[in-house]
């Protein structure tokens, strides 16, 4: 499964981290979230992760108030 993360719009609310801390972490540098293992492509970050993670990342995506996490 693929995660796409539009980082610039993150408001740093921490909800995704609470949903799945193994993949999401808050950055102390700029207060926005980091997609662990994500690669920057243009404006977005992408990560290919194991299928077993789907439901946790799905939860993170649903929790995100600004809808910037996409799961494919």
């Amino acid at each position: 499964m693929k995660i796409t993360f539009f980082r610039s719009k993150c408001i740093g609310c921490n909800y995704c981290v609470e949903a799945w801390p193994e993949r999401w972490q808050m950055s102390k540098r700029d207060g926005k979230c980091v997609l662990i293992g994500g690669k920057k492509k243009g404006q977005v970050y992408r990560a290919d992760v194991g299928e077993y993670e789907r439901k946790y990342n799905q939860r993170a995506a649903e929790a995100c108030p600004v809808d910037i996490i996409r799961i494919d």
Partner: protein
Amino acid sequence: METRYPEIMAPAGSWASLRAALQGGADSIYFGIEQLNMRARASNNFTLEDLPEIASLTKEQGVKTYLTLNTVLYDHDLPLMRRIVDGAKEAGITAIIAADQSAISYAYKQDVEVHISTQANISNIEMVEFYSHFADVMVLARELSLGQVQNIVEGIEERQIIGPSGELVEIEVFAHGALCMAVSGKCYLSLHAYNSSANRGACKQNCRHSYRVTSDDGNELEIDNEYIMSPKDLCTIDFLDQLLGAGIQVLKLEGRGRSPEYVKTVTRCYREAARAVVNDEYTPEKVDRWIQDLRDVYNRGFWNGYYLGQRLGEWSKVHGSAAEKEKTFIGKVLHYYPKAEVAHVRIKTKELSLDDDILIIGKKTGVAEPNIKSIWVDDQPVEKTVQGQECTLKIDAEVREGDKVYLWEDRDQ
């Protein structure tokens, strides 16, 4: 003695609004950067890199700048909060507006002027005394009545409560714009419904929706006014004399999410009104005219807020705006010839006729509000120009390539 006018503090949610605030005659502007401000959701927030330009642009005109840093802060926000305060100091921003004690304390230690945000809900004189250790200007909670505001202002005099500058603490209040149904900064509706915390600057404004009440057995109650949690907009221009009489020094205009023409109009009206009060030229006729101008731009209907003692909000009857004018995009400026004061414009939609009022809005232009006195197409004067045509217009305000052109006309009610 030199006449002292109250400070008119205008919102700047974008470059165009910032210019519009200056054009409207603001004494100060407030704005947010990055995600740590109450409009974190807005797409056009400024960034740390914009600070020097904002500072130099406003300094030229003697306008003060306030940076809002007033969300609830988490541990991971602290480094960014510090960088923002440091950046503000370096750029020469006048002050930061903060509610979280971590930001207040850090700014104070860095010798950056702090104003206490309404999110701190200052509602009594002891709180003013407490915060006076850190701040010279404080925004009171929006729920106070005029009498309560006046008591606080008098209390500052009596107790001689002075801020870090050595001067008496100044009181700022909201004078115009949207009000919230909740005590400022304490609403959880958005968080409950959408997981989107208002106190992190991500309010989804669900109070602005219409609601139905359904009983357990499925019966639906009809509610006369469906917008039961959506207050009308605060407007104090018709009792500004009383508000200023209570000793207010700073009048804050709400609207960082609003359009540039809104900012310009509201700023101009309140500046004129505040000056009229001080100069003893405040008349009912002028008030009527200002109210009419304010009705032209975005509003949900007006009420007096909590100042005159009503206990609960007057609820709006509309979902969106009750503005009496509306702007419709019609085209773009291709070029401007300053010597001839002529703009070359492409009309992309609709048509433009002689005597139309238009708005030209852009990052550097702010808001120009010309009336069309002549239109030329292919070097010939014409009465109107239609979709797809290029034309030249005499515009005495300086506009720029890429600026957007709008028709500004009465709205069909």
